[in-house]
Structure formats: structure tokens, C-alpha cells
């Protein structure tokens, strides 16, 4: 059974269609890469998976049942099941909260088991930050460190799935490498959905991938196969252009 799946999903913002006939399934332990140009609908797919929006047609299934975003208990369970990490570490942490508060917020709101303080220390350690970070504000940290804090917050709920939307594209090269190492380590226990422009990152982290063009999945399957022999002309063009700019940031 898949962890999360989208079946025949159509979605639009205010009548403007964005996603067309999107079907995909995330299998346990098989991290999924989503590749596509800016505006192709990658983040929108993640929003649907998070239950932040409802498909106009089709269904999202998670943890074995259809996701009804109007049901509060269902959503509380879903929040423990899947957690996000965003692209920009400068807007993903509340500047007015200390790291301790940022990390304990989901613990309290989701009514998670265990001591909130101890759990905060656990996830901080898991992302490789010193324990004294708890009493600092986000402004005391670099972009890479902030992204680690954001990842730590996602880990508090011990989710089965981590949705990472361009998690390293705002970081400089050296930091990028270290955050990818962290994600690689995490991916041993948590299944990732990774949105990225960088084909090298998808190749390193995701055994499976899909290619999105203007809200449609034009290609999907094992990452190795797609990279070696892309079938769709759009994928071929995308790969060709990406290979010219391996360090591209959006």
C-alpha cells in the first residue's frame, strides 16, 4: 500500500486550472523526486499532499484512507504522518520565536507523546545543531543552520513522509552539500518527496522521479532509467538544459 497517492487529480486556483490528471503514488522507502520548470505545479502537488488544499476532482489518499481536509481528527493524524520543509529558510522560521518555541510548537499542537523539551533536544541533535541553539532567535543562524532548524521542526512529529520543496536551492554550495548529506541520512527512515531543479540532487536522493510540465506528468519511473534514456521530448530538453547549469538556483 502506498504512503501517499494522488488519483486523477485536477486542481486550479480560482478557476484557473493548474494540475491536470495527476496520478502518482509514493511507496515506503522509495523517495520521489519531482522535476519541472518554475510554475509547472510542483509546489501545488505538495500543498495537496499536505492537505492545505483540496483537489477539484480526484482524491488524495494518505496512510490508507482518503484525505478529508475538513475533518479535524483526520488532519491531526495527517500532520503527524507528513511534514514539510520549505525553500526559503529566511521565511520559514518565525523571527519572533526562539528555536525552543519553534520546535515545541508542533509537539504541543499535535499533542505528541513524550516531553516537548526532550523532543526538541532530540531533533536538534538529529540535524547536527548544538543544544544551546534552543535559546536563540532565528536571526542568530545562517541560512544552512536555519534550514536545519526547519528540518528539525518537521522531525518533531516523527513523520513517515517528508515533503521538501527545493530545500537547498537558497543555500550556497558548501552548505547545500551538507544539508543534502543530512537529507540522505534522514531518507533511510523517512520517505522523501523532493522538489528540485537540480538533477544531481534528485539522482542522489530519489530512486523514483516524475517530470511535470504545465501541470501534467509527462514522464515517471525509476530515476536511473529516466536519466539514461528520457522518453518525452520535454524531459530530454530539461535534462539537456540542466546539464549546462549544474549549480543552477531558481
Amino acid at each position, binding site marked *: 500500500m502506498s504512503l501517499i497517492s494522488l488519483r486523477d487529480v485536477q486542481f486550479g486556483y480560482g478557476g484557473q486550472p493548474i494540475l491536470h490528471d495527476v496520478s502518482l503514488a509514493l511507496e515506503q522507502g522509495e523517495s520521489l523526486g519531482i522535476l519541472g520548470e518554475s510554475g509547472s505545479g510542483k509546489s501545488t502537488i505538495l500543498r495537496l499532499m499536505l492537505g492545505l488544499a483540496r483537489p477539484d476532482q480526484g482524491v488524495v489518499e494518505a496512510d490508507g484512507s482518503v484525505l478529508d481536509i475538513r475533518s479535524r481528527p483526520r488532519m491531526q493524524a495527517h500532520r503527524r504522518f507528513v511534514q514539510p520543509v520549505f525553500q526559503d529558510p529566511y*521565511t520559514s522560521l518565525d523571527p519572533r520565536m526562539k528555536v525552543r518555541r519553534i520546535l515545541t510548537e508542533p509537539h504541543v499542537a499535535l499533542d505528541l507523546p513524550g516531553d516537548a523539551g526532550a523532543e526538541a533536544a532530540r531533533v536538534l541533535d538529529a540535524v547536527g545543531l548544538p543544544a544551546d541553539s534552543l535559546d536563540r532567535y532565528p536571526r542568530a543562524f545562517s541560512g544552512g543552520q536555519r534550514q536545519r532548524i526547519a528540518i528539525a521542526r518537521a522531525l518533531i512529529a516523527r513523520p513517515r513522509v517528508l515533503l521538501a520543496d527545493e530545500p537547498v536551492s537558497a543555500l550556497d554550495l558548501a552548505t547545500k552539500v551538507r544539508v543534502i548529506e543530512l537529507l540522505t541520512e534522514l531518507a533511510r527512515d523517512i520517505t522523501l518527496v523532493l522538489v528540485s531543479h537540480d538533477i544531481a540532487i534528485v539522482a542522489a536522493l530519489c530512486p523514483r522521479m516524475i517530470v511535470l510540465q504545465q501541470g501534467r506528468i509527462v514522464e515517471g519511473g525509476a530515476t536511473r532509467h529516466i536519466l539514461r534514456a528520457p522518453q518525452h521530448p520535454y524531459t530530454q530538453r530539461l535534462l539537456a538544459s540542466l546539464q549546462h547549469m549544474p549549480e543552477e538556483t531558481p
Partner: protein
Amino acid sequence: MRRTSLWIGAILVGINVAVALLTLVWLPYDPTAMAGGRLQPPSWAHWAGTDRLGRDYFTQVMIGARIALTVGIGAAALGGLIGTTLGVLSAFAQRGIDDALAATLDILIAFPTLLLAMLVVAASDGASLGTAILAIGIAMSAILARLVRILTKRVLAQDYITAARCSGLGWGRIVLVHVLPNIAPTVLVAIALQFGLAVIAEASLSYLGLGAPPPNASWGQLLQSAQSTVYNAPIGVIAPGLALMALVLGINFLADGLRDLLDPERGAA
């Protein structure tokens, strides 16, 4: 530099607050009784001279401080509460409702406070401190609501709000723990500036007879009664004028200093 403005502001406003509190327990003279000759110039006995009826003028200026602060605080509290509530709600409202609210606020902002005050007075039992506070508070709330709406929208677009939703927080809690603390510095500074404008607005309303009636005369009313004798006794205009200026200047300095102090990039870590 910013520290200085905070200090100057704190001292000027502090003096006003101290005087206002003092008037509650002690006054140099009975404000309604004749205390000396008419229209006397300043002397040791009467620091700001006496008015047309021979009442001590300094006593009246002191009471004016209390009126000014009462109106300022009342209007700021009313305007801040209504403005923040409306602003946050409108940031959450659906497109159509939000647009309608924004248009209403624009009209209300363009609507002269004076006219609003006249309407409020007409709708109640005549001019009082309460009508002045109500009129100024309503005018202030429109300006603050527009600001709060924009600030709230900006905060709601941040990823930490999405993260909070994914952490299981409801919208009410998000407003309380994420939105309000993040918009507070800017809103507080705006309220402080509006406070200064409220004091001036009250003076204008009183000047036109739309403020608190005597004997709780405000500075605006003192200015108005003193204008006919301005050549014989200029102190009648100078004293309340200076007091008004000092308070408004002090509040503006304070707001300026506060803006810096509350800046998240510079505040205490």
C-alpha cells in the same frame, strides 16, 4: 541618536503623565474659583497668569494635560482594538468582502474627522469627552485597519505560517502567536503616532466646541477662549499651545525611538 529620541520622548510624555496624575489628587488652585485679578500676567503666585474671570490659568493647563491624555489613550485603545480586529478579519476575508471592507475604509479615511465628530455629537446628548474619543477613535481605527490588513497579509504569506498550519495550529492560534507578535512593532508605532494626532484632533474639536465642556477644559478650549484676549494676555495662547506641542512632540519622539527598539533585527537576542 535613536536612544536620544526615545529619552526625549519619554521625558516629555512622562512630565505630561505626571502632571495629569497629579491633578487627580492636587491642584494649585480651585479651577472654578477666582484666585486673583483678571487677565494678570505670569507671576510667582500664578505661573501662567489668570484668565478673564480671574481663575488661575496654570491650574487649567494642568487639567488640560489630563484631558489630552484621556482622549489620546481612549482613542488609541478604541482605534487600536477596532482597527486591529477589522484589519485581521479583512486579511482573512474572501476576496469580495475584503474589497468591500477596503473601500469602506478608504471612504472613512477620506471622511474628515471633524464631520464625523459632528455626526457623533448629533447622535448623542451633545458634545462630551466621550463623543470626542468616539469620533477620533473611529477615524483612527480606519487608518489602523488598513495598515493591519496589509501587514497581516504579508505575514500570512510567509512560510512559517504554512509550517504552523502543518503543525496543527488553527487560524485563531496562528493569529495570536504568529501574526500579532509580528505586526505588533509596526502597529504600536502607528498607534503612538495616531495618539499624537488624536491629541491635536481633540484640541481642534474643543476649539470648535465639539469637545469636553468646561470646567474640564482641554487645551483646545483654552486656546479658543484665549484668542479674543491674545493681544492683552498672550500667555493664554502660549501656555496651552506649548503644552500641546510638548506632548505631541514627545509622543512622536517616543514612537520614533520605539520603532527602533522593537525592530526584530536589532532587539535583544
